[in-house]
């Protein structure tokens, strides 16, 4: 790929999608800085790995006391569930909600707004680069979990194939969701309480605390209509092959619906947020 400068004679040939053209550059920069901060990243990952490990332990203990299985999950199936959850949670998580506060506070948004590319693209590219680098930590984590807890996993061909697009959709849903909430930082400096509320809801409704089939009936009913589940729990269950084809298709349709809703909200809120940011002038 050749880079063109503004002075080049062919500079009138602008890339049809400038934001797409920017991805490789964002990607490369982020890769480099992630490798730079690999220690910090690796340590952050410990928390990432520990959480599913804790809940897996809890549910294994429960399954033990209930004669080996609970809520349709055997010990081995719990282990498989949390192994995939670890992967999915890692691949879909974002840090934008923490990051926005700093950006607004220290005015680094000013630079982002000056670029002719919507800032969300840089975030997405950086996020993906980070994920790839950190897989080096996550995969051994999954391995440890597998050795310690011996998952039972019988792959279902079509379901496993569907996992990849479902995961991608899940990533986008979670990304857009959290990016939208992160914009709250433009209106208030106290976003922590909001973040905390989001995380608490997410813990229960996404399947992180427990597979949602184990939640009390009405809670799992609610969860099946909210985006939390479609970002995390749903991809995990697709990978495990626990869903019937009908359930899977219904799930994908709901994913698409949530993606559309999130996209619309972001477009709406971002305009106001950017205006507000320039008005405050920080």
């Amino acid at each position, binding site marked *: 790929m050749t880079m063109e400068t503004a002075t080049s004679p062919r500079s009138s040939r602008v890339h049809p999608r400038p934001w797409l053209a920017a991805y490789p550059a964002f990607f490369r920069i982020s890769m480099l800085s992630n490798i730079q901060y690999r220690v910090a990243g690796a340590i952050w990952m410990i928390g990432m790995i520990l959480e599913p*490990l804790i809940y897996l*332990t809890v549910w294994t203990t429960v399954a033990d006391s209930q004669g080996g299985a609970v809520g349709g999950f055997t010990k081995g199936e719990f282990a498989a569930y949390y192994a995939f959850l670890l992967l999915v949670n890692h691949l879909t998580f974002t840090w934008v909600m923490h990051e926005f506060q700093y950006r607004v506070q220290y005015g680094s948004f000013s630079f982002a707004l000056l670029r002719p590319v919507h800032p969300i693209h840089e975030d997405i590219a950086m996020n993906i680069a980070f994920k790839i680098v950190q897989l080096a930590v996550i995969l051994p984590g999954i391995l440890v979990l597998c050795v310690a807890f011996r998952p039972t996993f019988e792959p279902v061909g079509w379901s496993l194939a569907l996992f990849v697009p479902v995961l991608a959709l899940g990533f986008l849903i979670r990304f857009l969701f959290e990016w939208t909430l992160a914009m709250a930082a433009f209106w208030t400096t106290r976003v922590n309480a909001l973040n905390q509320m989001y995380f608490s809801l997410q813990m229960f409704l996404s399947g992180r*605390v427990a597979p949602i089939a184990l939640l009390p009936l009405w809670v799992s009913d609610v969860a099946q209509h909210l985006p939390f589940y479609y970002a995390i729990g749903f991809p995990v269950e697709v990978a495990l092959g626990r869903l019937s084809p009908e359930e899977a298709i219904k799930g994908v349709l709901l994913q698409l619906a949530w993606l559309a809703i999130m996209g619309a909200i972001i477009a709406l809120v971002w305009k106001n947020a950017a205006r507000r940011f320039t008005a405050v002038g920080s």
Partner: protein
Amino acid sequence: MVRAIRLLGVFLRIGLLGEAQYRANFVIQLLETGLGLVTALGTIWIVFSQTDTLGGWGPAELAALVGVYFIVYGGIQLVVAPSLQKFMEDIVSGNFDYTLTKPADAQLLSSLSEVRVWRVADVVLGICVLTAAIIRESMTVGWPQTLQFLLALALGSVIVYSFWIILATLAFWFIRIDNLLQIFWAMYTAGRWPVGIYPEWLKWTLTVVVPIAFAVTVPAEAVSGRVSGMTFLGAAALALFLALFSRWFWRQGIRRYSGASA
């Protein structure tokens, strides 16, 4: 000791003054802690909708554990964590020089220098949950249990504090150790469940390497008087050892800072 209390008093007052301008923070903090608590209790509720006992712990005992978890968490976040965080920043900025020129013990000053008063919310809510758990289950908590609980909590506090001092002291050698603190917090979340349910390697890590078992699980067990004399002996031994070791290590750190060993 009198000195320490007076210092804590003045730093508390200063913390209160600093935060008083942001009174809304208290409400926010209460809200955040409340949410954390609801999450923790909600999780217990879900677990116990599927079983009656978790590794020998009933729902009320586990709720009591959550209460203790929040009390200890609040205690760390109230003084120890912010103070030592500031200490590490001071090492980087060189402001630690000022601490050393004060006629009071530098470790004491560094451990108390910042009080985030609104973190009291964690302690208060933790006590509420603990009390509610005791009342609901109509556990018989008489003097022996209360004393055992307080003793276990005191020993656990010494252990956690010493552990933090050791972590913070590393800042004399390695400037950037915030990452280590991250590990501590990540491991600490494991303390919301009885340490006994974890696989052996994790159990030992949580007992010896990052001593959360003694800070949370053991005091929670003491509430229902289930702690054996051996455990108390072990906790006391560890507390004594860590207290002495952390003090010695801190001195080494100061020696290094002032270039005595170089």
